C-alpha cells in the first residue's frame, strides 16, 4: 500500500508554534510540513523538547498553530472555533495516553462510553458501541470492572477501546507503552498492529525503538523540525538496521 492512492488525512503546512515564557519565545514547532494518508502507521520519535509532543497536540486539535495551516480531512482547522475543535476531537480523533487516564470511579464500560456522552449522534447507542469497542480490544468479559480491578495492560486496552469508540480518523497514541513492562507492551503493540490491519490510521509518539519498529513510517524530530521521515520495510530485522543507522546520524 502506498500513500499516493489513499486519501490524505493530515496536511501540515509551515506550521509554527511559539510559546511565550516570560519574555522568551520558545519555538516548539519551527515550520513543519507533513502529510499523512489514510491507514498510515506513523511513529514520531525525538528527544524531549524536540517538539514531538507539541506536534501531537497540534494534530490532536488540542493546540493551535501560531502560524501555518493544518488541514484535517480536507478541512482547515486553523480558523475553527474552540467548540468546533472540541467536536473535531470528539468525532475524528482518538487519544491514547501513557498513563491511561481512566476515571477510577467508573466501570470500564462507562469509561469507554465517555466520548459518546459528548457526541451528537452516539448518545443513545453509547452502551452498545462501548461494548462493541471493548470486545474489539479483547475485554468483553471485563465490562463491569473498575480500573483498580484491571491490570496495566487491560487498562490500556480500555483506553484504546475508548479512543476507538467514535470511529476516529486518527488514533493518536502518546507513549502508549511507557507505563507497561515489555511483555505487556508487546501485546498492546500487537493490538495496534491489528487495528492498523483493519484500516485504522495510527500516529504514535514513542522513544522506544522496539515500539517504533511496529510502524511503517518513522518521523524523527529535533528542535521543532522534522529531521528525518523514513518509510520502513515490513521485515523486522531490516527495520532495526535502518533505525540504527538513523540513530548514528543524529548523534
Amino acid at each position: 500500500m502506498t500513500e499516493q492512492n489513499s486519501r490524505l488525512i493530515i496536511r501540515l503546512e509551515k506550521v509554527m508554534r511559539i510559546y511565550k515564557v516570560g519574555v522568551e519565545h520558545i519555538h516548539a514547532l519551527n515550520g513543519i510540513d507533513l502529510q499523512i494518508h489514510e491507514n498510515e502507521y506513523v511513529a514520531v520519535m525525538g528527544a524531549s523538547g524536540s517538539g514531538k509532543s507539541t506536534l501531537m497536540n497540534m494534530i490532536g486539535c488540542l493546540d493551535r498553530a501560531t502560524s501555518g495551516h493544518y488541514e484535517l480531512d480536507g478541512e482547515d482547522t486553523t480558523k475553527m472555533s474552540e467548540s468546533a475543535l472540541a467536536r473535531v476531537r470528539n468525532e475524528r480523533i482518538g487519544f491514547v495516553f501513557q498513563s491511561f487516564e481512566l476515571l477510577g470511579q467508573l466501570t470500564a464500560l462507562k469509561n469507554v462510553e465517555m466520548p459518546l456522552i459528548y457526541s451528537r449522534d452516539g448518545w443513545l447507542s453509547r452502551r452498545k458501541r462501548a461494548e462493541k469497542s471493548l470486545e474489539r480490544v479483547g475485554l468483553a468479559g471485563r465490562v463491569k470492572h473498575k480500573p483498580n480491578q484491571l491490570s496495566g495492560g487491560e487498562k490500556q486496552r480500555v483506553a484504546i477501546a475508548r479512543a476507538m469508540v467514535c470511529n476516529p480518523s486518527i488514533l493518536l497514541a502518546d507513549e502508549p507503552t511507557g507505563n507497561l513492562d515489555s511483555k505487556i507492551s508487546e501485546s498492546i503493540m500487537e493490538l495496534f498492529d491489528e487495528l492498523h490491519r483493519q484500516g485504522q490510521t495510527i500516529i504514535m509518539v514513542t522513544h522506544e525503538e522496539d515500539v517504533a519498529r511496529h510502524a511503517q513510517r518513522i518521523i524523527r524530530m529535533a528542535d521543532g523540525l522534522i529531521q528525518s521521515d523514513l518509510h520502513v520495510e515490513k521485515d523486522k530485522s531490516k527495520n532495526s538496521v535502518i533505525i540504527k543507522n538513523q540513530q548514528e546520524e543524529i548523534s
Partner: protein
Amino acid sequence: MRTLLLAPVIFLRLLYQSVYLALTQIWANKTRSILTTLGIVIGVASVIAVIASLAGLKAKVLSQVETFGSNTIIIQPRRPDKGRYSHLPWWQIRFKPEELEGVMEHCPSVGRFTRASGVGQETIRYGEKSVRNVNINGIEPAWHDIENRPIVLGRKISIIDDSRPVCLIGPELRDKLGLDKDCIGQSIRIGHNTFRVVGVIEQRPEMGFGGGGKESYEVIIPFEMTFKFGDPWIWALAESKSTDVLEEAVAEMRFFLRRTRHIEPWEMETFKVESLKSALKTFNEIALVVTLVAGGVVGISLLVGGVGIMNIMLVSISERTREIGLRKAVGAKKSAILTQFLVESVILCFIGGIFGLGFGKLLTMIISGINPVLEKTYIPGWAIVLSFAFAGSVGLFFGMFPAIKAARLDPIEALRHE
C-alpha cells in the same frame, strides 16, 4: 437548522449526564460531601424552624383573636418609658378597682365593659384530691358577653354573685378533682376559701407567654371575690358598640383614664388601651421584624455554607484537573464542563436542602413540644419552596466561579497536571 433543533436535545442529554456524574461524584466522596453541605443544612434547618415557629405563633394568635370579637379592647397598666411615672414601681402603676368604675357612663362608644383580675396560682382541693398551680381569675358579668366562652353546664357569673363565693370551672379540672359529672352545687377549696361551683365553662388553651404547661387550669370567680386572695392584678376588657366606633371607644377610654389617673396632657400614659385589631397589627409588625432578622441571620449562614461549597468545588476541580483535561480531549466543550460542575454544586446544595428540611422538621417538632404557645407550629409550603430556591441559588452562585475555572482549563496543561 438541524443544529438549532438539536441544541435543546443535546442540552438535556448534557444535563442528565451531569446529574448522573454529580451523584456518582458525591456518592464517591460521601463524608466530604456531608461536611460540605453542613452549612446549607444548618441554614435551611434554621430558616424552616424560624418560619414554622412564627407561622405557629401567628396561627395561635389568630385563633385567640377569633374567640374574642374584632372590636374587643384590652385595658392594662403600663409603665411609660419617659416622664416622672417611668421610675414608679409596679405596685404603684397597677390599677385600683375604683379607677375603672364609671367607664360605661363616660364612654358612649363602649358597649360592654368588664373589670378582670388575676390572683396568680392557687391549689384547688376537693376531698382528698388537689390540683396545684391553678389560675384564679376574677370577672364581672359582662365578661361572658365579651369573651363568648360557652357554658357547658349550669349558669354564668351574674350580677347577683357580686361577692358570693361561687365559681366556674372547666370540665378537665372537674374530672381531675373527681367531682360529679353534674358538679353544680358542689363545693371546692381554693386556697383557704370554700367556693360553690355554679357552672362548667369550656376551657380555653392558655396563651401562657410566661410559661404554664399544657396542664394549666383556670377557675373563674366574681371580681370582688379576688380580693380575698390579697392584692390581685387588675385589668379590663371592653367592646365597642360596633366595629365602626372602635377607634372612638379607644379614644374615649384613654381620655377617661387619663382623667381618673390625673395624667397631665404632656405626660405619657401609665396604661395601655389597645384594640385587638391594633394588637394584631403590632404583632404582625413584630413578626415581620423577627422574620427579617432571622432571615438575615439565616442568610448569613447560607452564605457561609456557600463559601464552603465553593471551597470544596475548587478542591474537587484541582483534584480532578486530569479528568477535566481528558474530558476536553475526548470532545467535551467548555459548556459541558461548566454544566457538569455547576450541576454538581447545585445538587450538593439541594441535598443540603433536603437534609436541612428534615432537621428543620425535627427542630419544629421539638419547639412545638417545648412551649404550648407554639403548638400550632407548622411548616408552610412556601417556606419549603423558598429554602430550596435559596439553596439552589447558593449552589449556582458559589459554584459559578469554580465551574468557570474548570471550563477554562487548557486540556494540555490539565493532562500534564500531577
